């Protein structure tokens, strides 16, 4: 037996070769532009083959499963000009590189900053929140995304940068279905704007998931303006029950003119549950989700009334 031949087996398996055993994502070309214009040029040049990589906390897992196989990744993490949240006038501007964790302490005074802080703590887990981005969640449009339901409830606006300049789109027109939005080829979601509601508004958020950090089975986000003891404007958004977040308009309308009370919260919650159309899936039967809608809407309203 040749002792020299046996020696490598005793060594730490140190591989200098760059070809390792595991390569879960399909191959791609990687670009890390320093400016938004460079990123847009790359999107234009590579067409629909290219994907924006922001936090990557949803995109990279889908690439690991090869459900997504972009041949070009445009990594925007080096575009420091996109890393901001700014309260300007009546709106909160959220740049494409604002991470979830930034919102854990209020980024603005008033009800919106407080709501965002509450919601942020429910997003996945701490390490995911360090990396994942607010705008990335909106672009990914997972039906169970907390930020998607929140932006819909607050009536936010999305700012898209594209080959023909910029355009704005209302949150209500953005979500089209599971992982599907109104984005056009060559466009990138550059900023989300939320109205900084005045202190006359109260907000509430409730979600249910089986384990901490899981995708929620159902969530409700509410924003209510109360004046002279009665509700004047009400928005109720639901997430996790269908292909996209949706507004419970009839339940919201039912509250207009009413003073906050436990009874009216129950009534609106029952209305939202009756109107929604959840599907059976492996996580929960439709009836269970419908019951969760009732509970989550009631909890979110109760919270807002007490705020």
């Amino acid at each position, binding site marked *: 037996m040749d002792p020299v031949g046996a020696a490598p087996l005793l060594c730490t*398996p*140190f591989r200098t070769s760059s070809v390792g055993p*595991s390569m*879960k994502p399909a191959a791609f070309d990687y670009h890390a532009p320093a400016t938004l214009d460079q990123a847009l040029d790359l999107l234009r040049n590579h067409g629909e083959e290219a994907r924006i990589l922001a936090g990557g906390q949803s995109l*990279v897992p889908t690439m690991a499963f090869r459900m997504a196989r972009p041949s070009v990744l445009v990594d925007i993490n080096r575009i420091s000009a996109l890393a901001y949240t700014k309260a300007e006038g009546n709106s909160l501007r959220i740049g494409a590189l604002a991470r979830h964790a930034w919102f854990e302490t209020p980024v603005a005074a008033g009800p919106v900053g407080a709501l965002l802080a509450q919601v942020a703590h429910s997003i996945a887990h701490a*390490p995911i929140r360090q990396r994942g981005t607010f705008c990335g969640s909106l672009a990914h449009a997972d039906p169970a995304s907390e930020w998607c339901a929140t932006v819909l409830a607050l009536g936010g606006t999305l700012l898209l940068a594209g080959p023909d300049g910029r355009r704005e789109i209302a949150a209500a027109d953005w979500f089209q279905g599971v992982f599907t939005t109104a984005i056009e080829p060559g466009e990138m979601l550059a900023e989300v704007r939320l109205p900084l509601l005045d202190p006359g508004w109260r907000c509430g958020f409730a979600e249910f998931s089986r384990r901490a950090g899981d995708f929620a089975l159902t969530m409700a986000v509410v924003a209510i303006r109360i004046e002279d003891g009665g509700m004047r404007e009400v928005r109720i958004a639901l997430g996790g029950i269908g292909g996209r977040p949706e507004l419970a308009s009839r339940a919201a309308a039912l509250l207009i003119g009413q003073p906050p009370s436990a009874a009216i919260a129950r009534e609106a919650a029952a209305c939202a549950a009756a109107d929604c159309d959840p599907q059976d899936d492996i996580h929960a039967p439709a009836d269970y989700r419908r019951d969760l809608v009732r509970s989550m809407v009631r*909890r979110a309203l109760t919270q807002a009334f007490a705020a």
Partner: protein
Amino acid sequence: MSRHRTTFTVNGQTQCVEIEARRTLAETLRENCGLTGTHVGCEHGVCGACTVLVDDAPMRSCLIFGVQVDGAAIRTIEGLAAADGTLNALQQAFQDHHGLQCGFCTPGFLMLATWMLERPQKITEASLREVMSSNLCRCTGYQGILDAVRAAARRLGRWDDAGAISTPA
């Protein structure tokens, strides 16, 4: 596919690697840097075994590509013990309080807890449970892990007794 020359530090040591863009940071650390202390579990961001600190923030190294950490300072399990192998306070607490059995998840838990111990805010029972719920352990039932981090936090003056456990409304 594109290949990239990427330079970063791991536990203070400069690493210069040439990697394919699709190579994750976890694979880069293990295969290119020879640092196999970072464990790869689910490879899609669920289990947290591969948690490392990137510029002092905990991140799942299976969800970042190696090419993305150019210029960053990475910290891994290999950087925790002293040069002579003496365990640091957190590692010792894991041993003392049975914070591990098979040990596969341990590197991720240690890096996550390291971040908690270094944050400006002290650790409360509620924040401990919230943050430690990020990672999966199939052996311990978590109680030994929580005991260990609690003990290390107390020893290092990073524990806040005032924190109550929050329960869902």
